[in-house]
């Protein structure tokens, strides 16, 4: 009934501060690799590894135009990550709404018949 597949990669990817910072950088717009790497004191190949982790789990996608590869965010993946507990809450709210309505019915019957 509930979709929750394949999120482990997302959370593993986001467990790293460099990768979280990349996500934050991408939250306003698409950026080229060199621009993304600039704030980090890190060799480019290592940095590119981080980008690959993000892309593999579907949080970002990249495109190469000429010699420049640039990255953008895939917001759908983050939405999937945040939705589970929210779904659980909705399910419980509705269940309890139904319970309360049913109890009102029962009470009305009990008042009439004097039994439950």
């Amino acid at each position, binding site marked *: *009934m*509930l979709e*929750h597949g394949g*999120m482990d990669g997302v*959370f593993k990817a*986001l*467990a790293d*501060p460099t990768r*979280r*910072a990349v*996500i*934050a950088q991408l*939250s306003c717009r698409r950026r080229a690799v060199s621009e993304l790497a600039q704030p980090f004191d890190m060799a480019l190949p290592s940095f590119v590894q981080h980008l690959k982790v993000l892309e593999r789990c579907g949080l970002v996608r990249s495109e190469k135009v000429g010699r420049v590869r640039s990255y953008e*965010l895939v*917001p*759908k993946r*983050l*939405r999937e*990550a*945040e*939705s*589970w*507990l*929210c779904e*659980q*809450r*909705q*399910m*419980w*709210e*509705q*269940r*309890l709404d*139904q*319970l*309360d*309505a*049913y*109890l*009102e019915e*029962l*009470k009305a019957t*009990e008042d009439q018949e004097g039994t*439950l």
Partner: protein
Amino acid sequence: MSNNNFPWTLNPKLDLVLERVVDVPVHMVWKAWTDPKHLVKWFTPRPWKTVECKIDLRPGGQFYTVMQSPEGETQPPGNGCYLEVIENQRLVWTGALGPGFRPNDTSEAPFLFTAAIVLEEVKGSDGKPATKYTAIAMHSEEAGCKTHSDMGFHEGWGAALDQLVELAKTW
């Protein structure tokens, strides 16, 4: 909540706590939760249905439900067991254990839960006895890891990511 009514510690990042007051006596709320004939009438959010229910009301006793989709497809049963049964006060059950406290095969149900219903008699709007009840659903940390509200729990998710998720909602 951690008091005599539910003397366990909850984690707001993993657990749901829903409190309601309903204008019926405690024993009726208890009945609705513990008698299959009543439970099937309301337990599953519509348009889904509970088509089967077995209740063996004692610690270790079976709490078995089968749901059916709106298209008429029957789902794998929930076969949990009760952990605590205090009539008209508290009912605790889990999906992690089956009848007789035997651990369930959890590969089919990756998110385990323990749930509790805590009942308390209060005075209703008409002065007659009413019931305050609290529904608690506790989840494992694994489940919490998969939720946004839990993002602070993984070290340093930070404000940037919250903003990001806000942004993502608008897309």
